[in-house]
């Protein structure tokens, strides 16, 4: 195939421009996090870690990080657990109403988060419950469940039923079969789904802003409340920490899942 044609060069150039567009805001956040000055944005006057130090000393930001990490981990755990069960039902069994139910479970993707946020909050208000950490957790489970379900289902389709049947015919019960056969084969998808759920929960702002309270702030909510004043190097520093965290997690996950899947037949 000829690739040196002028058309191809244009396509490549265009793609590079789109990349620059997509990454400039991200790079700028990372760079400005080291900006020593207090007001204004550019020009930078040297390189300094003072804003990172200030972040590390800020109790409420440490608290927000702790909240986000706990919330993200629990969300990933619950979503993945119930997502695996649902995926097993959809892929391994035939039952009436299957397609409708599958669409129902995937529907949170297509429902605007702002409506989801209002709806759950309104329901809570009707039950006369205060906003709490539990609200954030159940909300995030609903937000992330469809993604976990999609990822696990896609992998489960590719795992032959015969493996499970072989295990059963050798005398394994349903739970043993799952633990010894299905689970190891499914592990890459479980890891990927769990990580995806974690980052969605960790990054979510649209619905979370409805559900969070002053006691249960997550990092994005914290950034949002800091933005009220104006953008500052401190916000950029916080952004930089978050970017590093959320980008490192999937890369690590991808590496792990490739290792696990290579170890299996």
């Amino acid at each position, binding site marked *: *195939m*000829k690739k040196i*044609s002028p*058309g*191809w060069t244009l*396509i*490549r150039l*265009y*793609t590079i421009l*789109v*990349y620059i*567009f997509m990454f*400039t*805001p*991200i790079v*700028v956040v990372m760079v*400005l996090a080291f900006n020593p000055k207090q007001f204004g*944005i*550019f020009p930078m006057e040297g390189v300094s870690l003072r804003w990172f130090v200030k972040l590390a000393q800020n109790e409420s930001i440490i608290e927000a990080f702790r909240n986000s990490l706990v919330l993200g981990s629990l969300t990933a755990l619950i979503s993945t657990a*119930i997502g695996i069960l*649902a995926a097993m*039902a959809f892929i*391994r*069994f035939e039952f009436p109403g299957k397609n409708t139910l599958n*669409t*129902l479970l995937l529907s*949170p*993707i*297509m*429902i*605007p*988060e*702002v*409506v*989801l946020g*209002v*709806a759950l909050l*309104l329901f809570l208000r009707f039950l006369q419950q205060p906003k709490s950490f539990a609200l954030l957790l159940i909300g995030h*489970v*609903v937000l992330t*469940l469809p993604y976990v379900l*999609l*990822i696990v*289902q896609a992998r489960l389709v590719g795992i032959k039923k015969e493996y499970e049947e072989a295990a059963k015919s050798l005398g394994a019960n349903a739970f043993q079969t799952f633990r010894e056969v299905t689970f190891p084969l499914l592990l890459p998808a479980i890891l*990927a789904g769990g990580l995806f759920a974690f*980052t969605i929960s*960790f*990054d979510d*702002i*649209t619905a979370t*802003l*409805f559900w969070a309270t002053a006691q249960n702030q997550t990092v*994005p909510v914290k*950034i949002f409340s800091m*933005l009220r004043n104006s*953008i500052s190097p401190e*916000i950029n520093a916080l*952004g930089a920490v978050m970017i590093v965290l*959320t*980008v490192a997690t999937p890369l690590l996950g991808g590496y792990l899942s490739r290792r696990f899947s290579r170890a299996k037949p």
Partner: protein
Amino acid sequence: MKSDKWKPWALLAPSLTAVFLLLVIPVCFIVVYSFWLRAPSGADIPAFQMGNYAKFFEDFFYPGILIRTIRIAFETVLLCVVMGYIPAYFFYRSESRYKRVFLLLIMLPFWISFIIRTMSWINIMGDSGLINHFLLKIGLIETPIAMLYNEFSVLMGLIMYLLPFMVLNIYVSLEGIDKSLLEAARCMGCTEWQAFREVTLPLSLPGVSAGCLLVFVLTAGTYLPPMILGGPGNDMIANLIFKRVIGTLDWPFGSAISVILLSLLFVIVWTYNRYLGINQIFKSFQGK
């Protein structure tokens, strides 16, 4: 085979319970609440009246915001197609050994917080931001140009958020095209451009339309870019919901606006599903 009819239901029980309790019932609640009355004291009174909907359509103010939302969503969709198709095509045709890295990079923004990507436009388009700093430095302008807090900056924020969805959808459908079809077209004497126009482009349209629907729905349901990058005149329908519910605590009216937004999107998604099928959208999340 033994009767194991109950098994799938047992497996589905936790997720169905979660979605039913936390999604279906709450959404029904919004509908019920949208007919309620708000007392001057701020209490909500159960009722069945159309007052909240009448208020929305009583003058041009609220419908104007709805129309603006639809217009901005269409603009975003269009810009995302224009900006997203070529990079997706580039990944599809590229034989570079860095192809995986390119793909990973375009996925990267998915992992980076929406609020960080949105607020960073202030770093770039603000009065002392990157662009103004550069233009001042080279002496093209004397005073900073005001670039923020208008519809353009809102669009920039939206594209930043939604472009990866579009690229991914188009790429997934391009990858699904049998490459031998292209070779056949070339053998039969098509030029590269003709082969693209007659084979690749039509076969990638399902991905394009899936991307368009996703981008439209997500744009219509977001309030963050207008809130952070927009001015007073750039509010979209989701901003209105946020302000009514969180700001003035007017739950019945906030619910009515949510129902209006939900119905609009339902009509669009339903029509789309009727003629094109919705499953293409879910494919893009699986194909990694």
